């Protein structure tokens, strides 16, 4: 009887071992990391150019042009990241305003530009402005200064939170804490 019991116990142990092995194999399979195949990951094609210019013309008339020391063009998003830029916006009367800054982003699809960091602007008719950010709305043809706006012309200083213009700041609209001082300002 004793011999019979010993054999049974052996068999059970073997069965248990086999079950454990199967369970281990199944667990290993079920918890494997979901690794995508190498060629499926989307890679944005970024083309980089140095000392290059962008421009926009409407009906053959140059509206603006922008030179950048470095341009990184994302082929998919159509976004152009630019460094150390010099942008020139042209007015009806042929005068223009030149904006220099450390950074700018051009959205080719919307034709919008956003200029930031170290902005300095000066026009051919002796107007200058400083601000935190400049944006160009291609659709509305509106140039907007946003944050700490200071516009100065001979005999005039205008300040405000925000300013916008449809003619490269020949005329402009100040918004928020708008203030103009005109005349002999040093008096």
């Amino acid at each position, binding site marked *: 009887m004793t011999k019979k019991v010993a054999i049974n116990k052996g068999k059970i142990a073997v069965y248990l071992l086999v079950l454990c092995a199967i369970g281990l194999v199944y667990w290993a399979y079920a918890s494997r990391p979901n690794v995508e195949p190498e060629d499926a990951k989307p890679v944005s094609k970024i083309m980089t150019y140095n000392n290059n210019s962008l421009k926009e013309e409407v009906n053959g008339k140059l509206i603006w042009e922008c030179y950048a020391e470095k341009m990184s063009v994302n082929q998919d998003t159509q976004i152009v990241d630019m460094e150390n830029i010099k942008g020139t916006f042209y007015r009806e009367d042929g005068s223009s305003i030149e904006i220099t800054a450390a950074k700018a982003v051009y959205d080719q699809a919307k034709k919008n530009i956003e200029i930031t960091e170290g902005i300095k602007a000066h026009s051919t008719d002796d107007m200058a402005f400083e601000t935190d950010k400049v944006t160009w709305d291609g659709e509305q043809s509106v140039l907007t200064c946003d944050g700490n706006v200071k516009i100065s*012309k001979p005999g*005039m200083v*205008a300040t*405000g939170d925000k300013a916008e213009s449809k003619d490269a700041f*020949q*005329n*402009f*609209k*100040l*918004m*928020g*804490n*708008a*203030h*103009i*001082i*005109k*005349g*002999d*300002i040093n*008096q």
Partner: protein
Amino acid sequence: ADGPIELSGDVIEYDARTDMAKATGGVRVTRDGGVLTGGEATYNFKTQEVTITGGVTAVKDDMNLTADKLFSTANQEYVADGNVVAVKGENTLVGPQIRYNQATSDISMPNGGSASGPQAEIKGDVLSGNLNTQQYHAVGNVYLNSKTNDVQSTSNEATYSGNGQDFTFTATGNVNIKSPSRNIITNSDNAVYNSAENGKLVLTGNAVATQNNNIVRGNTLTVYMGDNINIK
């Protein structure tokens, strides 16, 4: 304007071609030591003309003016329109329109109103005068009230001239003068009053003076309305 002009507001639109600015929202214009405030203003930097509307105040030196609208030219002429109250020193002008020349202190109130000072108040359909010399001229439904001497006059036309504590006035056309405290009423074509000469009142043309049921008539009557009353 000699010194710089300052314009501020919530929004300012500036046009370089016309050299004009339009400000809206909490507008303040500072010029030559004077301050204008209102709801909206247009400033012409070329001509120095400013138009300001919406609860206007104009303050400079001892002049303080409120109105619905104010237009100011380069040579410091102000035209204030609508509910105008102008206080300068001890004088107060009230009327629908006041034109004020800051350089000369001349005022004119083409649509009538009143001018009052420490001694007297004068009203009329048309008023003009000078705030410095304290001389006013009123035409049409003229009412003149001397607060200090208790003399009230109505006439077609009158000129009032203040001189420190004293004053004179000349009234013409349907002149009626009352002094309730003296119980005197006069009527005449013309009248001249001088507070300095013991309240001397000279009536000319159809002159009638009545006191306590006593009536005196003549072409010329002189009434002394000072400390003691007598009629000549």
